[in-house]
């Protein structure tokens, strides 16, 4: 009897067909996208483009390095780091409570039946949409708004980063937690622990390295973001860069680009350090 039940399965991988269909769909969808964006990479290599590139890049040498300029860059760099850090910390303070609400792993009402309480479900959906709203408006738009409300300067940038990044952090925190092994959390909940206790004793030890490295990556993005916002008057390195670009001072721009590389490299090193500490 067992054999007859086993036979019809044979060796057809049930996932095969959906994989083929998925790949074909991807290619079919991708083609019009390339056409629509007028994606013609060979234009980069014609003579006119090459000479324009050479002129622009040629301006970058030598990088400006007189002490007065460097001192000014130092101040602007600190301002940028401070803007990014303050923004990220505010974003975390907003995102963490939202993560607790939106996370399904910490649902007590779904123990046993897997059916979440209706009220709990509605609250989760509302918070989910709030997170979508927060991150769907680019930080640049927030920055333009805040520059108008509170005037030129880094404060506008801090608020812009805090708003957009809280949406991103909230979403990704929830996803990291949901993709980590749920069993340790589940057994704590099943044995009568509260949501927060289960989070700190079951979820966090599993998800901490991911959460920390993602937060530091976002801090790195915030540094880049604060540069872009500098162009609309939110202070820091970006504002200096905007001025230098307008004055066609390529040497100054290249010094500032080097500072960016250093900043991103530092963020990477810090992230690595944290992860090693937690291994």
């Amino acid at each position, binding site marked *: 009897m*067992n*054999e007859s*039940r*086993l*036979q019809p*399965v*044979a*060796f057809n991988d*049930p996932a095969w067909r959906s994989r083929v269909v998925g790949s074909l769909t991807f290619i079919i969808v991708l083609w019009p996208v390339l056409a629509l964006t007028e994606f013609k990479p060979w234009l980069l290599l014609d003579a006119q483009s090459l000479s324009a590139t050479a002129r622009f890049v040629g301006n970058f040498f030598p990088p400006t390095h007189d002490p007065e300029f460097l001192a000014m860059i130092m101040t602007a760099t600190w301002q940028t780091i401070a803007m990014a850090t303050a923004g990220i910390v505010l974003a975390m303070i907003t995102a963490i409570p939202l993560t607790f609400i939106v996370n399904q792993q910490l649902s*007590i*009402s779904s*123990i*046993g*039946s*897997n*059916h979440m*309480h209706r009220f709990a479900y509605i609250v989760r959906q509302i918070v989910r949409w709030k997170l979508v709203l927060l991150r769907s408006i680019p930080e640049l738009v927030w920055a333009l708004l805040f520059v108008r409300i509170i005037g030129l300067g880094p404060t506008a940038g801090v608020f812009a980063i805090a708003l957009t990044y809280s949406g991103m952090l909230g979403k990704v925190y929830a996803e990291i937690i949901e993709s980590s*092994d749920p*069993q*340790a959390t*589940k*057994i*704590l909940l*099943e*044995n*009568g*622990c*509260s949501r*927060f*206790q*289960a989070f*700190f*004793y*079951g979820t966090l*030890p*599993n998800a*901490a*390295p991911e959460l920390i490295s993602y937060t530091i990556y976002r801090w790195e993005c915030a540094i880049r973001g604060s540069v872009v916002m500098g162009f609309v008057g939110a202070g820091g390195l970006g504002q200096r860069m905007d001025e230098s670009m307008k004055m066609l001072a390529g040497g100054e721009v290249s010094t500032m680009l080097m500072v960016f590389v250093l900043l991103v490299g530092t963020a990477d090193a810090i992230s690595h350090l944290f992860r090693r500490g*937690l291994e």
Partner: protein
Amino acid sequence: MASPQLRLQNLFSQHPDVVTAIFDGSQSPSKSNAKFALENITLTITRGEQIAIIGPSGAGKTTLLHTLALALKPGSGTLSFYETSPWAMSGTERHSLRRQLFLAPQTPPLPARQRVVTTVMAGRLPNWSLATALRNLIKPASPQEAYRALARFHLQDKLYARVDKLSGGERQRCGLARLLLSDAELLLVDEPLSALDPQLAAQTLETLQQEASARTATLICSLHQVDLARSKFTRLIGLREGKIQFDCQQVTDQMIADLYQNAPLKSKHDAYPLPMPHDKLLCD
């Protein structure tokens, strides 16, 4: 006579994975209704009893323990705890009832990066406020207690080791040490001896039984070691294909033989059974 701690009447229950599959939409409820992991279970359990559940793999032992632990809602039938039905309570009341139960899964899901002392102290969590719980993460509240609990399973030197440095058997006993720190009055232990050698298995079982009688807690243990179950437990429940085959104090060799005879080779996840090597497909 006092009211029984637990009473199950005509209880039907589905395998936890099936319940999840319905929720995910990957399986329609009508299709899966046909199959129950537990069928028509009727049981009465008095506080302080020590019960072994035996039966072939896939008989529904784990599902029964999860149902008793209020971790799985029964499909139909009644489950009552001191004559009140937990599934009729509000969610909050039911959750505070869970403090009186302790479920120890077969492979205890302990976070890999946590230290043993924290993992064991987590048995106290249901009695702690959040502030105490957080303080315990910074500095263990009473490492002596965790040490004593571990010592009863010969694991005391691992107090400050990380969980992922433990072997399978050590991890299993670490999960049981957490049980010692809880103050539950219903201990549900799923195959606590599966990763232990015979000598350690006997000692571990003895510790569990001592602990249960010391706090007059009920101990319900699923076991594959039939000999141990018969010599150490005063009540044995034989489970096969989700049904109770026997529930008595003394079992005969014949009853055991019948319980395990021709047990169907059933995989827990029936979805894609692999063809056997002797299948005609390969012989042709």
